[in-house]
């Protein structure tokens, strides 16, 4: 589903974020990316969504070489991805409902069908009773769940989450992880970056550990040989 082949990413200014990274994620797998801050976790996720492009090597998503994708093909790649951003990227000029509606508007979804989907997504993350609120009025955990609702409303096959439990206390973090696990159970491919070791303790999923842009454990998941 997602394959990195000897990927190097250097930012303008010379900072080397990723060095010769190679891995493979099978369909339906749930994989964690760990490492200290600045290890290249965010960069790795950004390369998958073509927010950044690699300098060397290839990033293959759904049999597409994302690194050389034409500018006008990128939107259609992103519509198949659900992305949960580290800084949330919620829009505070509209309510919770309209925030979740945005991806469907972008895809030009049928209005009545999208109404159902928005409510279903909000229900999934437990925010259905807050649909009229402004995101500003939500707590940190609720904002995070709103991000998740927006990422899944499109029913993507791949979900990318950048530090989804970043600033949350343990109880909220476990809530969020439970939501991710339920997606994993219905066959969504998940890639979650985190520096929170406590999350990893009660999971037996594969972990990609990054250190200074290099992959530490070249582990193979259950879907690969």
């Amino acid at each position, binding site marked *: 589903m997602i394959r990195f082949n000897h990927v190097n990413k250097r930012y303008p200014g010379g900072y080397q974020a990723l060095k010769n990274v190679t891995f493979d994620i099978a369909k339906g797998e749930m994989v964690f990316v760990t490492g200290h801050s600045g290890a290249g976790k965010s960069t790795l996720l950004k390369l998958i969504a073509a927010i950044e492009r690699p300098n060397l090597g290839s990033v293959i998503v759904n049999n597409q070489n994302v690194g050389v994708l034409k500018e006008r093909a*990128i939107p259609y790649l*992103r519509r198949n991805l659900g*992305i949960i951003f580290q800084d949330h*990227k919620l*829009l505070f000029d509209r309510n919770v409902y309209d925030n979740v509606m945005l*991806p469907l*508007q*972008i895809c030009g*979804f049928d209005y009545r069908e999208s109404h159902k989907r928005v409510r279903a997504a909000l229900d999934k993350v437990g925010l259905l009773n807050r649909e009229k609120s402004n995101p500003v009025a939500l707590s940190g955990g609720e904002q995070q769940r709103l991000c998740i609702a927006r990422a899944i409303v499109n029913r993507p096959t791949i979900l990318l989450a950048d530090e989804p439990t970043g600033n949350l206390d343990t109880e909220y973090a476990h809530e969020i992880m439970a939501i991710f696990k339920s997606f994993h159970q219905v066959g969504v491919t998940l890639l979650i970056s985190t520096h929170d070791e406590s999350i990893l303790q009660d999971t037996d999923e594969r972990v990609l550990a990054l250190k200074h842009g290099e992959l530490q454990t070249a582990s193979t998941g259950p879907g690969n040989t």
Partner: protein
Amino acid sequence: MRHALSQITGVLRRMFASRLAGFLSILVIGIALSLPAGMYVMLQNAQGLVAQLSGTPQISLFMHKDAKEEDADKLRKLLEQHPDIDRVEFVPRDQALEQIKKSTGLSDVIGSLQQNPLPDAFIVYPRHGEAQALDKLRNELAKLPKVELAQLDSAWAYKLQALLNFGRMVVFILASLLSLALIAITFNTIRLQILTQRDEIEVARLIGATNGFIRRPFLYFGAMQGLLGGIMAWLIISLSLLLLNWQLDALSQLYASQSSLHLLSPGDSLTLLLFSMYLGWLGAWLSVARHLSQNETH
């Protein structure tokens, strides 16, 4: 469909959110457009007047005052057989006097005359309209017997026509420059709009919005602003013409004749609105295109 509708209502909401700023841009666009469009209307009016005055070119032949009816008959036959003359109209001196009485409002003055000072006259309609041919014909007719004077009526009209062409060029240059100004105004308003909606654009791009999707509301906005600016220009022109006509009426009464300026024709009005709408759209397009090209991933 509902999404497009919600985009349009979003555009309108944004437009009315900054009421004063929006109104000012529309006013500026309106004034910028009303200058060339107003000049165009005045030219159209002048053009109408010239056409009315000159129409097809004519040569007036005035006979000697002592010419008799037989002389007039003879001359008429001669003229009717001339290969370069289309038709001839005879204006007896009495009829000419009546006409002047009616059309100039100088009836009091003319009524006080003891005798008719006017000669018999022919109005000659030439077959060819070129200035040279007309001149040649005029010279020829002037030499005919019992002809006092042959006058080419449209000579001054040609000069006026040339002047109008000059005016039209001025309007064209002015319109081109102010169109650029209009594009620049829209470019700038849209640029400010984009700045206030940076977050929304960024998020939309990150979750799969095409450039077209991002562009659309701004294009609506630009076109809408252009259209409203066009309507503003139309109002400015129409109101100005009504005011001018009001003054012209008073003037006309003094000269005992009827004249008034025509307003923009429906066709010209539509052209004005569509054109300003298009320019607004273009300004918006350029502005968004610039923003999008600055934010491509590398």
